Structure formats: C-alpha cells, structure tokens
C-alpha cells in the first residue's frame, strides 16, 4: 500500500512537471492546441494530487498535514484547485503557465522532504489541527495565485509604462484582468486565512489551554493576516490597486514562504507545531 502511494506521488510529480512544460511551450509558441493539452494535464494533475492525499489519509488515519512533505503537497494541491476553480469563472490569458510552474516547484520542494509515513504524535491528533492547517494552506494557495498575477502585472505594467513592447506584451493579459484576479484572490484568501487563525486558536486552547501564545508562528501568522488586511482595507477604501497591489501580493507571498519554512521546516528540525 505504501509502495503504491509512493508510485502515486511519482505520477503526480511527472504529470505536474509535464503540465508545466506544456504550458511553457504554449506560452512560447502560443499554439491553442498546446493549451488544450495543458489544461487537461492540469486537471489530471489536480485529481492525482487529491488521490495521493487521500491515499496518505487512508494509511495514516488522520488528514495528512503532519510533516513538511504533506503540508507542501497540500499547498500545491490547494493552489492547483484554486486555479482550476478560478479558471472556471475568469479567463486570464496565460495564467496557467505561471501557476503550473509554481505548482511544479512546490511539488519538487515536497519531494525533497522525507516522504516516510510517521504516526503523528498525540498532540497532533486533534481535529482542529487539520482544520487550521488546511484552511491556512488554502488561504496561502489563493495568495500564491495573487502572487503569480502580481508578477504578471508587474511585467505587463513595465512594458506599458516604458513603451517598449517586448516578449510579454502580447502574451500577458490586460492589467485590468490581473487586477481583478488580485482582488478576487485577496478576498477569498483573507476569509480563509481568518478562519485558519481562529481554528488554530481553538486548537491551541485544546492542546495548551490558552487561545493565544506569542510564539514565532503566532506572531508571523498575525503579521501575514495584518498585511492582507491592510491590502484589503486600502483596496476598498482608497483604491489601492494596480502596481501597488501587485507589489503587495508579491511581498505578502514572500513572507508566507518565509513563515512556512519557519513553521513547517524550521532550520533546527522538529516543525509542524511539534515543540
């Protein structure tokens, strides 16, 4: 069974890398046949990732969010599905190329962590933990989409401002579409993040008897929450948008990645609230 699961992960990795390659080829060639193939591959990759998570769940008996490998896989899977649902509502030209690359990078990162099954310590056996981690990672997945959109926005905006139309001008969507993407991802991500923090607090109270500790993880998640709160607030009051919103999306994501490294795989070991 475990062997099968490892094979499944190899398949996930292979399909996702292939997706990224095909999307990249489409980005370069702009051949709509390639896009069709890439979209199907992305769906397959999303389904395989879900199957893999389910397989680990059925072996472990808990939602597989107990080690760095599982957390990053969950992150990648959430990003894939966030993209797929987003695509279903909005059309953003060549967005898939950027997202598939990010998902592929996340899965490669996941592959670099030990994939072994370890029975989780009792402290992690609460239901609030997967709720907290799942919601937070889902929030991050939307922020990662905002990050991809932000990068695209900055590339496109630079060409429009400098009036030198190079490689990206025709390949990237309109600034408005990218800004809408930012607004959409920001709103959904923020709601998920808030729910994640609340559930994390409930988990803390269950395990430690307090709702809040000023540990580094708690502080960093509050910092992230405040960053996105600021973005959301400024967008809906004074109209922070465009380049500033794009830069904030990139900065926000950078801080998330830093925090994730700190929480999920701290340089000293342990990780995942194990201390």
């Amino acid at each position: 069974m475990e062997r099968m699961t490892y094979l499944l992960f190899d398949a996930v990795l292979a399909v996702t890398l292939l997706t990224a390659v095909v999307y990249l080829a489409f980005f370069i060639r702009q051949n709509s046949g390639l896009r069709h193939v890439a979209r199907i591959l992305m769906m397959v990759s999303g389904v395989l990732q879900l199957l893999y998570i389910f397989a680990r769940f059925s072996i472990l008996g808990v939602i597989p969010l107990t080690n760095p490998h599982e957390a990053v896989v969950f992150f990648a899977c959430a990003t894939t599905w966030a993209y797929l649902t987003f695509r279903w509502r909005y059309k953003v030209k060549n967005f898939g190329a950027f997202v598939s690359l990010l998902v592929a990078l996340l899965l490669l990162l996941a592959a670099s962590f030990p994939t072994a099954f370890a029975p989780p310590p009792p402290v992690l056996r609460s239901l609030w933990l997967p709720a907290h981690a799942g919601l937070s990672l889902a929030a991050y997945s939307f922020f990662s989409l905002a990050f991809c959109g932000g990068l695209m926005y900055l590339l496109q905006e630079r060409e429009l401002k400098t009036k030198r139309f190079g490689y990206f001008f025709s390949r990237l969507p309109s600034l408005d579409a990218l800004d809408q993407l930012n607004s959409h991802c920001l709103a959904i991500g923020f709601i998920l993040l808030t729910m994640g923090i609340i559930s994390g607090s409930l988990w803390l109270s269950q395990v430690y008897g307090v709702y809040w500790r000023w540990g580094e993880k708690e502080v960093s998640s509050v910092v992230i929450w405040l960053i996105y709160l600021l973005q959301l607030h400024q967008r809906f009051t004074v109209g922070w948008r465009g380049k500033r919103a794009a830069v904030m999306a990139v900065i926000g994501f950078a801080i998330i990645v830093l925090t994730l490294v700190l929480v999920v795989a701290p340089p000293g070991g342990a990780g995942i609230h194990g201390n």
Partner: protein
Amino acid sequence: MATETPLAEHIVLVGVNHTTAPVEIREKIALATGYDQPLPALRQLPGCRECFFLSTCNRVEALIVGAGGNEAAQALAAFFFGNELTESYANFLYRYEEAAAVSHLFTVASSLDSMIIGETQILGQLKAAYRQAAEAGCTGAVLNRLLPKSFTVAKRVRSETGIGLSAVSISYAAVELAKKIFGSLQGKNVLLIGAGEMAELAMEHLLNQKIAAVTVVNRTLARAEALAERFHGQAVAWPELLARIETADIVISSTGATGLILRKEDVIPIMRRRRNRPLFFIDIAVPRDLDPALNELANTYLYDIDDLGGIVDVNRGEREKEAVKARRIVAEETEKFMRWRRSLALNPTILQLRRHIEDISARELAKTTARMPGLSEADYAALERMLAAVAGKILHAPLQYLKQGDAAPEQENKVDVIRRVFGFDDEEPVS
C-alpha cells in the same frame, strides 16, 4: 476674347497651416461661417478669374487663378488678415506660384503636409471645398482640372506607398493599448479634448469597441457640439475639463494649444478622487498638450503620437522611405500638370493663328464679292469653301509644327517662332 499669352495668368496659392501659424492666428482666419463669405470675397479680388478656398483646423488656404504679381499678393494677404494686416502677420503666410502652388496642393491632398502624415480626412475636406467653389461658380478651366487631379494624385499616393498605414495604425494602436490596460473597452468613457480632425481620426477604431459615452470638451463650444453630435456624445465647456477627466477612462487630447493644458499636479487629486481607477491619456497634439510626467503617476498611462506610431511596426526609417516615394509621385504629377498648363498656353497661339487666317480670308472675300453684284448664293458658298480650303492648307504645316513634340523648352520656342513669323506680338492682337 481676352489676351491669353503664356503666363498672362498665374496660379497663386496663399495660406497658413499648423506649422507656419499658431492656432490663435489660424483661428482668426479660419472662418467658422463656412465658404459663403470667403469665396465671393476672393472673386472680387482684382484680376481673379478662378478661386478656391480651403479651411480646416490645421490650415487655411486660398488658391487663385488670375493676374499674378505683387498687387495680387498684397490683395490676398489683405483678404486673409483684413485690416489687421501687419508685417508680423504677413510672416505667417506662405505663398506659392505656378508649379510650386500645384506641387503644394498635391502634397496637401496626399496628406504629406498633415499633422498626422497619411490621414485621409484632408481629401474629403478638399473635395467638399471644391464642391463649394464649383457650386459658387468660382472654378474654371484651370481649377476644374487641377483640383480633380489633386484627388487622383492623393489616391495614387495612397495606393502606391505605405504612407496611409501609419495614420490608420495610430487609432488602431490606441485601441490595442487600451485593451491591454482595461481588458474590454465596453462601457468605458472617452473624453476628447479639442474638437479637431485629429480627435475624429483617433476615434475611428474606438467607435467599434462599444464604449459607453463620448464627451467632447473644447475652447469653442460650438465646435465641440458639432463633433459630439457625430459620436452621439456630449459637448461640454472648457472649465469642466478637470471634472470630466474624473469620470473618463480614456482621454484623447488634440488641441492646438501651444503649451501644456494638463499637468501632473492637476491629475494627482483627480486620481485620488477616482480611487486610482486607471486612466489612459493619448496625446496626439503637436506640440504636446499633456505633461509627459503624467506617465509617472500610478495607474496613469500616457502615450503621444510618436509612442503610438512606434507600436505598429512601421518604423521611422520605413515611413521616411514611403514619404520620399510619395513626394516623387507628387513631383511627377506636378510636372504632368504643368505640361498641360503649357499646352493650354499653346492653344491661344493656335487659336490666334487660325483667326488670323480666317480674318484675312473673310476680309478678302468681302472685298471681292462687293465688286460682284450678280453673284448667286451658290457661287458665294463655293468661294467661301475655296477660301476655307486654302486657309486650311496654309495652316496645316504650322499647326503640325506647333503640336509636335512636347518637351517644354522646345515647345515654347516653337510658339515664339510662329508668333514672330506672323507678327502677333508686334501689333495689337486680333480680337
């Protein structure tokens, strides 16, 4: 018949355009009343036989066929500036005669002299002006050939060179850029600053984009209204400019102002009030209307004519090459027209020669028949026929000589020879 010796009448063109006169000067003479007033005024100038008047936002020109010389030039300058004529005003005028005038007209018609080289509207304006002049009975043999010729020259330039591409592309490029900023242009508001033909030109492609509304703001409200009507838009007075920018998405500026009409400092508070909704400025005025620093503001994009032209792959060198080609066509057609002019100058000599012989015949016939009272009508007719045949035979060779070969100097020589042989220039011409 009046004396029509060569160069007795001149083609004279006098005018001002966007490069020679600032807009304040042009507005003084660009008669908003249309053609009803200037055409009769031109007609009454001393020595004027044919006249044509063209008035657009970027140029005012009068074309006269009649007596040349300084007097006519003075009269024309006075026509342009009326009593306000001063030394400094006269400097704004350009004046061309004969081949230079023809060449200038062809250059204008081909849109080589336009603010946006290659735009097509000038041709329509020329045609309308010609219709006005023709209806007013102001055109004659020369203009009725010259003006239609200028239309065909323009068409030739358009079809044989790529000069028109860059003009069409400016509107197209504006739409493409706007789409990269706004996604769809559906429901966007367009504000036109300045109601000139440039504004109309820029709108060409935008109109197909389902934009929500067009607003025109202009210093002269009447002009704004006229343009707004064409786009089913709204005209507003100049003081409303800043308020209108607040609600616009795309702003196209094409005024003839000599300085900037909108500065960065004006737009900063507007962007705040708009809550940073993107604003796309297109400055197609020369000199520029909009502060180049606008492009530095967040969510604000500013493109001028050169930027827009740069988008389409017609690079400057390519455009220059096309312009050279177009000028060659203009020169060629000017030469052709002037050849026709000279052949027209030849015609009076032929006519005079024929009349000279006919006159002698008629005089001699009258003298002879006076002494032959019993002459029957049939005999009289026979005598007439004989004289006509003799005249025809005598004229045959000199006429052939005049009509052969069209190289210009040679032809003028021939005319000269004939006139001297028959002594036309020694005596008062036969009338």
